[in-house]
C-alpha cells in the first residue's frame, strides 16, 4: 500500500483538525491539570488544593464514583435486555412497539430530563401519587427520591436508549444463522442471548458503556437539579468553587480527580480498540 506521496498537502489537511484539538482541548486540559497543583496564596506548587478537595468533598468523590458505576451497570443490564428482546423477540407487535418507544429519551436534553424528574420523583410527586392511589404506598411512608437515587434513575433513563441503539445495532448486524441453529437445537431465548449473541457483540457493549460512563460523569445539570442538600456530585462542587469563591485551584483539583476517573474508562476504551485491531468506534 506504499504510495509515494508528498507529506506537505497531507499535513496541510491535518493541520486545522490538529490545531482545533490542540487549542480548544489539549491546551485548556493541560492548563487545568497543571493549575490543580498551583497554590494561589503562596504562588508555589504543592498538593494544597488536593488536600482541601479531599477534606471538603471526599464523600462527594465517593458518591460520584458510586453513582456513575451503578448507573453504568444498570444501563448495561437493561440495554442488553432490551436489545436482546428487539433481536430475539417473537411477538412482532411487541418488538415494533418497543423499538419505537425506547428511543424517546434520546431526544430529551439532560436539563429537561432533570426538570421532569424533579416533579416526578418528589415526595408528593407523580410517582408517589400514582403509587398511593393504587394503594401500593402508604401516604405517611412516601419518601422523596430526590437524592442520589434520583440521579441514578435519571441517568439510566437518559442513557439507556443510547446504549440500546449501539448494542441493538450490533446485534441486528450479526449473522442470524448461529442464533437460529442454537434455537433449533433447543436453546432458550435467554441462553441464546447470553451464550451466543452477547459474546459476539461484547466489544460494542463495552464501547456503549464506557461512553455512557463518561457522559454521566460530566453531567452538571442532573445532580444540580435533582440532589437536594449533600453529598452531591463533583461537577456541582466544581461549579460551586468557581462561582462562589472564584477558587479555580480547588475546582481544578476536583477536575483532576474527575479526569482520573474518566481516564480509567478511556484506557479500557483504547485497549478495546487495540485488541480488535482497529480504531475504536
Amino acid at each position: 500500500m506504499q504510495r509515494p506521496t508528498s507529506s506537505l498537502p497531507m499535513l496541510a489537511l491535518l493541520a486545522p483538525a490538529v490545531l482545533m484539538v490542540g487549542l480548544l482541548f489539549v491546551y485548556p486540559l493541560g492548563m487545568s491539570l497543571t493549575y490543580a497543583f498551583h497554590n494561589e496564596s503562596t504562588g508555589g506548587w504543592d498538593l494544597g488544593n488536593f488536600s482541601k478537595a479531599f477534606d471538603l468533598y471526599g464523600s462527594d468523590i465517593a458518591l460520584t464514583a458510586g453513582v456513575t458505576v451503578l448507573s453504568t451497570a444498570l444501563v448495561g443490564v437493561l440495554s442488553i435486555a432490551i436489545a436482546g428482546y428487539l433481536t430475539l423477540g417473537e411477538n412482532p407487535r411487541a418488538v415494533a412497539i418497543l423499538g419505537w418507544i425506547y428511543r424517546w429519551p434520546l431526544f430529551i436534553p439532560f436539563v429537561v430530563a432533570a426538570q421532569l424528574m424533579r416533579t416526578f420523583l418528589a415526595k408528593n410527586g407523580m410517582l408517589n401519587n400514582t403509587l398511593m392511589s393504587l394503594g401500593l404506598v402508604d401516604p405517611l411512608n412516601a419518601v422523596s427520591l430526590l437524592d442520589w437515587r434520583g440521579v441514578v434513575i435519571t441517568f439510566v433513563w437518559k442513557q439507556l436508549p443510547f446504549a440500546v441503539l449501539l448494542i441493538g445495532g450490533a446485534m441486528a448486524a450479526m449473522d442470524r444463522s448461529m442464533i437460529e441453529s442454537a434455537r433449533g437445537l433447543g436453546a432458550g431465548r435467554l441462553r441464546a442471548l447470553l451464550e451466543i449473541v452477547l459474546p459476539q457483540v461484547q466489544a460494542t457493549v463495552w464501547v456503549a458503556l464506557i461512553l455512557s460512563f463518561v457522559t454521566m460523569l460530566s453531567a452538571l445539570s442532573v445532580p444540580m437539579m435533582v440532589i437536594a442538600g449533600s453529598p452531591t456530585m463533583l461537577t456541582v462542587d466544581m461549579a460551586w468553587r468557581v462561582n462562589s469563591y472564584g477558587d479555580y485551584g480547588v475546582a481544578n483539583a476536583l477536575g483532576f480527580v474527575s479526569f482520573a476517573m474518566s481516564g480509567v474508562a478511556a484506557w479500557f476504551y483504547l485497549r478495546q480498540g487495540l485488541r480488535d485491531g482497529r480504531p475504536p468506534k
Partner: protein
Amino acid sequence: MKQFKRALSLSITLALGSLSLSAQAQVTLNVISGGSQNMVDYVTDYLGPLFEKQNPGVKVSVVGTGPDDAGSQKMMEKLQAQKAAGLATWDTDVIVPNQQKTGEMVQGGLLLKYRDSIATGKYAVSQSAKQALGVNVDGYVMPMFESQTALAYNPDLIKNPPASYDELRSFVAKSPKSFGYNGIKGGMSGVAFVVGWMYAYGGNPDVVQQGPYDAKAQAGWKKAFADLKTFNQQVVFTPGNAGTLDMLNRGEIAMGPVWVDMFHTWQAEGRLAPNLKLKLLSPGMPGQPYYYAIPAKAKNVELAKKFIALATSPAVQAEGIVKRFNWYPGIDANVVKPALDAKTWNQLFVDVTPSDLAKFSKPFPLAPFFKDLREQYETQVQN
C-alpha cells in the same frame, strides 16, 4: 514602502470610520443582567421597550448571566478580560451585578463613577447604595431594587408560625421535617437562612455586618455551626430556591426560607397556593439589592446614564419594580410611594410590614466573613 503602509492604514481607518458612521443610525445599548430570569424579563418586557420608545434609533439588547455570585462572576470575568486585553472601549454599557461582585469590580477598577452626574442620583439614600458587603461603592452604583428573604409558611398546617430563630428551633424539635431549606449550594435563600442563623447564634453580628474584618469575631461560630448540624438532622433539604416553593406548594414541607419577591410573583401568577404566608424571623434575615453600574470603558456612556436615570426614576420604580415585579424600591421609598395607589403599596407589605423590615432586615456579611462562613459551613456542617 513606508508611504504605502501609511496610505493603507489611512484608508482602512476611513473605511472603518464610515462603517461606524452608518451604524450610528441604530445604536445598540448592551445590558448584562445577573439574577434570575425575572430580572432579564424586567428589561426585555418592560424597561427596554420603554427606553427604546423614548429614544428612537436605540435598541436595548439584554443578556442574562444567571443568579447569585455565579452570574455576576461571569460579567466580572468578561470585563476583566477586556481590561487585560487593553481595549479602548468595552462591549458592555450597563451591568446589573449583585453586591458581592460589585464590590470586587469597584476594587478592580472595572466600573465608572457616574452616580452624581445623573438626575436621580440624589434618590440613592439607602445604606446599600454606599456600602456593598464592606466595600465602599458610593458613587459607582444605583440600587435597582432591594430584595428580602423571609420564612414562608402554610397557615393550614401551622397556626402560629415561629417569629424567631429560637421559636423555629423548638418548633422543628417538636415536629421534625416540617421545615425545609436548600442548603448553601442551591441558591441564595438557603444561604440567607444560614446567615440569619449565624447572626442569631454566632455572636458579634454587628462586626460581621459592618466590619472591620477580624477573624477573632468568629469565636462563637464553632458552637453555632455544631447546633446547625444538629438542626439539619430534623429538616428536609430542597432542590434550590424554586424547589423550596415547590415543596411548600405540594405540602411536603410546612415552611421554608424564600425570597419575598419570588414568593409574591409566583403567587400572582398562580404557581403558588394563595393561602401561603410570610414571616420575617427575628433577630433578622438578610436581604440584598441588585445594582445598576456602568463599566469603566463602556462604549455608550451617555446613553447608559440616560438608561439608568430612567430605570431609577420614581415613576419607573413604582410601576416596574414595585407593581409589576414585587420588589422593594431601590431608591428612596418616600418618592416612590406617591406614584402608586395605596392598594398596590399595601399589598407589598401585607405580611412583612415596614416596621418588620426596619427591625429585622439585615445585610449579608462583609465579603471576607461571608467567604469564611460558607466555607466553614462546608467543613463543619456538611461533612
